[in-house]
């Protein structure tokens, strides 16, 4: 029994090191001074740590603006995706109606669409309608990418809030909307927030559509990818690590909901 336990922890630790090590490496690379990055022989652990690369990255032309734009796009994405998608999720959880299965399958089918298939024609449409290269236009695109996820996740989380509670509130004199706002919504709120945070990360990380739908008003990933060929290593490493930081925080915040979100979103 004892060697079984040892084997379990050994395997678990190996996998943990494999997952964490690359993040430690990029953090070290981001904190290595430029001169040392290009020197040979190069030490595995840098001789001195410095914020030089970070400062260089943050002060590079366009980075700060791109960061704020990324945040604005992500916030708008969360707002649109939840406002449009959550009512549908609620309907799927609470009502029986004709075409429900068809609607569910339709939602699942949207997963087959590659981002490029949506982004390229949308770029052409956006150019004609003057929303090309805007925060709102990109947020709409990101909301479309997040929509299937939001609908399926909200439907499963409203399923977990017993309908009896809503009915009880209505017999006690609440209106339908009042029952929802006072009973179901507060109970579902933590998971709703988790889904919103996940949507935020999805938008913050998205590269292809951002690079295609913006030119001057780049988001951070779009800015980094379009300057790849001209940017030095210290810019790339500092940029890479900088992009990871919010993702790490958010994953930590939603850690308890990871399984329930992905479980329902995928396993039907």
């Amino acid at each position, binding site marked *: 029994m004892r060697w079984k336990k040892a084997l379990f922890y050994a395997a678990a630790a190996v996998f943990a090191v494999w997952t964490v090590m690359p993040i430690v490496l990029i953090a070290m690379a981001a904190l290595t001074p430029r001169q040392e990055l290009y020197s040979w022989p190069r030490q*595995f652990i840098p001789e001195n740590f410095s914020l030089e690369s970070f400062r260089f990255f943050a002060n590079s032309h366009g980075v700060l603006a791109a960061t704020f734009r990324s945040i604005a796009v992500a916030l708008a994405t969360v707002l649109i995706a939840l406002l449009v998608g959550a009512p549908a999720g609620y309907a799927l959880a609470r*009502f029986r109606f004709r075409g429900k299965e068809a609607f569910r399958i339709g939602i699942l089918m949207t997963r087959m669409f590659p981002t490029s*298939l949506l982004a390229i024609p949308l770029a052409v449409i956006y150019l004609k309608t003057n929303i090309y290269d805007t925060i709102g236009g990109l947020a709409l695109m990101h909301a479309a990418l997040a929509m299937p996820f939001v609908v399926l996740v909200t439907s499963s989380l409203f399923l977990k809030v017993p309908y009896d509670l809503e009915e009880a509130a209505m017999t006690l004199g609440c209106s339908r909307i009042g029952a929802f706002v006072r009973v179901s919504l507060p109970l579902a709120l933590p998971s709703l927030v988790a889904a919103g945070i996940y949507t935020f990360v999805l938008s913050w990380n998205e590269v*292809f559509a951002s*690079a295609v739908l913006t030119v001057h008003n780049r988001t951070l990933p779009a800015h980094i990818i379009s300057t790849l060929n001209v940017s030095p290593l210290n810019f790339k490493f500092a940029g890479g690590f900088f992009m990871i930081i919010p993702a790490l925080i958010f*994953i930590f915040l939603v850690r308890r909901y990871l399984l329930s979100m992905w479980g329902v979103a995928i396993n039907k």
Partner: protein
Amino acid sequence: MSLLRRIPLPILLLSPTLIFLTLFFVIPLVQVSGLAFQSPDSVFTLSNFDRMVSDIYFDGALRNTIILLILIIPVQLVLAFAAALIVNQRRRGSTFFLYIYAIPLGISDLAAGLIWLSIFTERGYLNSILHNLGILERPLIFLSSMTPKWMVAAIVLTEVWRATPLVMVILLSGLQMIAKDYTEAAETFGCTWWQKVRYVILPLLKPSIQSALIMRTMLAFQMFGPILVLAGRQLPVFASESYYWYTTVRNPRVAAAYALMLMALSVVATFLYLLLLRTKDEQVGVM
């Protein structure tokens, strides 16, 4: 207001999503076909596809898209299954390991590409280790058109590192739906650990494996960041070619043709998985 009241509530709640999905999925699909199958003066033509297929990057892009898929998916599936089994042991610390393993879920493919660039670049960690071990005097160049195998290796490692957690989470939630009675019965009859995994858990997990494979394959077809960071156009794939044709060549029609090819591959792959891994009702295993 009185008009709104006459519409049944479910329809009212669903309609925003329906309108949104029509605007952002159906219309682009129609538009992309229009771009790919028409000349600039809206006459039906196959010339965009001609141009795509006769381009010098096309054969490479087709080959690389498929090779990367074949190298990445099986490794990922095995690793993810192992990780899911570890977390599902419910020993002390299992949850802690789950949170650790899930970290790459929040990391974009672009950032993941940059991480592995710090390892594989000329003055990177890999060369540094090899030098410290005394194997190398001068740094090796891994990421160039002279070393395509190293480039593929770097991209495969990046994708395996970044996207295995996604497969793990899907498989884990499948594992947790398997009723304890099955595994307990297997133990009562004296099954070894391996027999339990092979004859009880794996068959019951088939629906989750199927969803994970479909999901992962579609995302692998779209992989884009690591390609641009680690290889650029030296290792073209469909997604990156679509990007280059739109941004560099400024020809949305050929870009649209590539996007349609990608969609066709996704659809074919999905149906293949559905066909090859057909699940029977009794395999769902939920009690």
